């Protein structure tokens, strides 16, 4: 393979993103890649997607967050396309939150550390996904059925 000189090599930007969805099915690397490509193709069309030149670099299954590589100068279009993609055939209603954009993979990885952490508590058939800032998702049969919040009980006395 011909190695390109630094001036001929394409320039990239790295978008860190997180997937929020109505259905909380397991999303592995291939699933995430297909989701991102569907989003870009759905909004920008095949030609627009080709111009963006997307490539999924990293995917953290636990966080449901990853890093997408796109061509420099087209990152705004890619982010807008991710924002406009709201209904997925596999995950139901989705929200692809852009955590940040960087010129390096290392820079983009820093954004992944800002994803809010959560705990899962199960009560009967229901599970409660409790986020660190007080947000709570109520999940039944792998699907979010209510969005609510958690208030710290007031200290007694």
């Amino acid at each position, binding site marked *: 393979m011909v190695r390109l000189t630094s001036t001929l090599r394409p320039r990239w930007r790295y978008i860190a993103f997180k997937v*929020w969805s*109505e259905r909380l099915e397991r999303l592995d690397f291939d699933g995430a890649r297909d989701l991102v490509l569907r989003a870009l193709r759905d909004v920008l069309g095949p030609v627009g997607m080709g111009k963006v030149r997307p490539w999924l670099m990293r995917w953290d299954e636990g966080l449901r967050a990853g890093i997408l590589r796109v061509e420099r100068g087209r990152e705004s279009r890619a982010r807008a396309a991710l924002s*406009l993609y709201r209904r997925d055939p596999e995950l139901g209603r989705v929200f692809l939150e852009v955590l940040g954009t960087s010129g390096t993979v290392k820079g983009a990885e820093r954004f992944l550390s800002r994803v809010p952490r959560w705990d899962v508590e199960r009560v009967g058939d229901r599970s409660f996904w409790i986020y660190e800032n007080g947000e709570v998702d109520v999940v039944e049969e792998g699907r979010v059925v209510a969005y*609510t*919040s958690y208030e710290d009980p007031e200290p007694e006395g």
Partner: protein
Amino acid sequence: MDEVDPLRMALATDRLGYEVVILTLRLRAEDPDLDELEWLAEETAELRDRVDALVLPGCQLEAEDPGALRRAIPRVRPLVYYLAVGGGRPGINRAALGDTRVDALSHPERGNPHAGLGKHELELAREKRTYVEIDLARLLRRSGERLAWQVSRLRDLLRMRRRKRFPLTVALGARDPLELLPARQLEDVLDLLGLSEGEAREALVEAPRELLRWNVACKHVFVVPGVAVVGHG
């Protein structure tokens, strides 16, 4: 937001970096449920200790008859910081734009094959300083061909705005946290729709600030239980 608890929406918007959030209730102008609105005002007042963002109550009136809309506006106005009217029908569009107590006319293009505003409506919007609101939820809930049609109507609105300079603002219209967007992503969407950086900033930052400043400073007095009186006419 009707099906989601207000604190959850406030927490989600706070996490996404918004400074000011207006939680709106959608009410029918023929029979507005003012108890619901007072409940929202009290809830938003309690949220101030929980979130950094300033959370304020608002209302969107949906009307079928301009007469009912005119009767509902004075009842609802003192309870909210932001009053929008859901447009679409020519009579409703005109009645909303011609009333200085209405802050914004939302989705005037609904049901129309164009932006839904004629020469007379544009003059009214400029004269009465009533904002025309782009409801992004109508865009975000669509895909494929329907999304393309919605974009074409918004482009129509933008073309008119560039010629006639009427006040324009953008609302997310999210009903639950999955429909929210961080401000940065919102700018990217507006860029994709064809708004320049200056136009996007005007619609996203300056217009809402101006609206709230105007309402607080000289237009209305807020005496809802739980909401501080922040200005006098």
